[in-house]
C-alpha cells in the first residue's frame, strides 16, 4: 500500500517529466538536436503562470498566458538562432541551445530575483480512493496535463500539419520530396514544443517551487525519458516520463531523496547501452 501511494504521488511528477520529454522529443525528432533550453522554457512557463495568477487570481488565465508566452519564446529562439544553424553540426545546435537556456534563466533571474516563490493555491484535504490518499490539487493538475496531452496528440494525429510533422520525423528526405513545406512544419513544431514545456513548467511550479533553476534541474530526467521513450516518439516520451516519475518516487525509500535524480542518469545509461532506440523507437539512427 505504501508503494502504491508513492506510485500515485509519482504520477504527477511523471506527467511533468512526460510533458518536458514530449517537447524535447518533438524537437529532437524533427529539428534533429537535443534542445538543452527545454528546461528553461519550462521555467519561463512557470514564472509567466505565476505572475498572471498573482495579478488576476485565475490559474486558468495563468496557464493560457504561460502556454502562449512559452510558445512564442520557442518560436523566437527558432527564428533567431536555430534556423540560422540549420545544416550545421549537432554540436553547434546543442551549444546554441545551452546558450539560449542561459539567456532565459538570466532574464528570469533579473526580472524575478533568485528567491524561491510558490503558487498561492488553496490546500485541501486529500480524498481517499481505494485506500489511497489523493490530493485534489494533484487531480486538477493531472487533468490539466491530460487535456494538454490530448490537444497535442489531436494535433499530431488528426490534423494535416501534425501528419506532416510526423512524416518529417520519420524521414526528412521523403517528406521533402512529397512536397511538405519544412518552414510551416518547423513553426508549428516549435510553437507546440514551447506550449507543452510551459504546461510542464507550470505544473512543476505548483507542485514544488518556482526559481530560475527549476527547469534546468529537470533536464536530466527529461533527457532520460526522451531516450527511454525512443527519440521522435511522442507516445514513448509521455509513457517513459510516467514510468520515470513513478520509479523515482518508489525508489526514494531505498536510495534517498537526493539520489532519486541520479536514477534518471542510470536509466539514461542503461537505455543507451542496451537499447539506444528506446522502448518505442522506430528507426535506427535518427539522423
Amino acid at each position, binding site marked *: 500500500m505504501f508503494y502504491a501511494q508513492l506510485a500515485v504521488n509519482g504520477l504527477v511528477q511523471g506527467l511533468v517529466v512526460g510533458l518536458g520529454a514530449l517537447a524535447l522529443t518533438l524537437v529532437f525528432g524533427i529539428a534533429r538536436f537535443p534542445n538543452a533550453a527545454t528546461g528553461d522554457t519550462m521555467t519561463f512557463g512557470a514564472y509567466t503562470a505565476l505572475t498572471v495568477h498573482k495579478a488576476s487570481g485565475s490559474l486558468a488565465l495563468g496557464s493560457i498566458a504561460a502556454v502562449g508566452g512559452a510558445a512564442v519564446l520557442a518560436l523566437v529562439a527558432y527564428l533567431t538562432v536555430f534556423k540560422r544553424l540549420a545544416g550545421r553540426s549537432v554540436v553547434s545546435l546543442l551549444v546554441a541551445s545551452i546558450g539560449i537556456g542561459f539567456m532565459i534563466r538570466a532574464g528570469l*533571474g533579473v526580472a524575478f530575483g533568485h528567491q524561491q516563490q510558490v503558487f498561492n493555491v488553496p490546500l485541501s484535504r486529500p480524498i481517499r480512493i481505494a485506500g489511497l490518499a489523493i490530493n485534489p490539487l494533484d487531480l486538477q493538475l493531472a487533468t490539466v496535463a491530460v487535456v494538454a496531452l490530448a490537444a497535442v496528440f489531436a494535433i499530431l494525429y488528426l490534423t494535416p500539419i501534425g501528419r506532416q510533422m510526423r512524416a518529417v520525423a520519420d524521414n526528412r528526405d521523403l517528406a521533402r520530396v512529397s512536397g511538405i513545406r519544412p518552414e510551416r512544419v518547423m513553426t508549428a513544431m516549435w510553437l507546440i514544443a514551447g506550449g507543452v514545456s510551459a504546461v510542464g513548467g507550470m505544473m512543476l511550479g505548483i507542485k514544488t517551487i518556482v526559481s530560475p533553476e527549476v527547469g534546468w534541474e529537470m533536464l536530466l530526467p527529461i*533527457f532520460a525519458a526522451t531516450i527511454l521513450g525512443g527519440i521522435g516518439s511522442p507516445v514513448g516520451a509521455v509513457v517513459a516520463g510516467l514510468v520515470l516519475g513513478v520509479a523515482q518516487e518508489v525508489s526514494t525509500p531505498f536510495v534517498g531523496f537526493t539520489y532519486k535524480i541520479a536514477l534518471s542518469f542510470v536509466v539514461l545509461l542503461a537505455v543507451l547501452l542496451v537499447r539506444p532506440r528506446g522502448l518505442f523507437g522506430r528507426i535506427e539512427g535518427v539522423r
Partner: protein
Amino acid sequence: MDAYLAAIAIIALIYMLLSLGLTLQYGLTGLINFGHVGFFAIGAYTSALLSLQGLPLALTIPAAAVTAGLAAWPIGLISLRLRDDYFAIVTLGFSETVRLVITSEKWLTNGVQGIPGIPRLFETISVGIGAQLAVMGLILAVTLAAIYAMRRIVASPFGRVIEAIRDNEEALQALGKDPAGFKIQVLILGSALAGIAGAFYAHYITYIVPDQFIPLVTFYVWMAIIIGGVGRVSGAIVGTGLLMLFLEGSRFLRDIVPGVSEVEMASLRIGVVGLLLVLFTIYRPQGLMGDFTKR
C-alpha cells in the same frame, strides 16, 4: 593590488588547465564533453580529503589527477558506443551525478556544508604575498608543462590520429585504426588535467562546497575555447584570458555601478555567457584565433 593580481592569475591558470583539457577532448578529438566540471570536482575533493588526512600535497595533487583520470575511464568505455550528442548528454548527467554524490555522502564530504580549512600550498614556507607568488609559480609551471605537452601532441602522430577521429571517424577505421583506444586516452588525459586544476583550486580557495561545481563552470570553459578558437592551443590561452577579463570585469562593474546586487550580477553573467555562446556559434564558429586548419 599585487595580491589581487596574483589571485586573478591563479584562478586564470586554473581555468587554463581546464581549457587545455577540453581543447584536447573537444577541440582536437571532437568529444563533446559537457561534464568537465565533474572531473574538476573529483580532483578538488580527492586532494582536499587526502590532505586533511595529513598526506602531503605533493602526493594528494597527483592523486587528484589519477582519480579524475580513472573516473573518465568508464565514461570513455561508454562513449565509444554513443553518438556525439548522446555522449554530450551522458557527460552532463555524469557531472550532475558527481554533484549529487558529493551532496549526499555527508560522512565523506560533509554535504552542502562543504569542507573548510583545506591546507594551502606552501603553507609552511611563508605567508602573505610571498606564499601567493610561490603558488602562482607552481601552477604556472604545471600549466606551461601542460601547454608544452599539448603542443608536442598536436605535432605528433598521436595528434594526427585524434584529429582524424574528429574529422571523420569511419574513414580512420577504414584505414585500419581503432578510434576507441585513442578516445579513452584523450578522455583520461583531459580529465586528469581537470583533476589537477580541481586540486589547485581546493588548496587555493581552502573551502569547497558542492555549489562550486555546477555545470556553469563547464560552460565557462566551453565559452573560453569557443571564443578563443576550437582546436588550437593558442585559442585556449586567449579564450581563457578573455574569460577571466569577463568574470573579473563583471565583478568590478558591480562595485562601481550602484544598485546592482551580486545576485543580479550573477544572472547577468549567465546571460552574457549564453549570448556569447549563441553569437559565436552563429557568426564566428572558428573563434578569434581562427580555424584549426592552420596551427
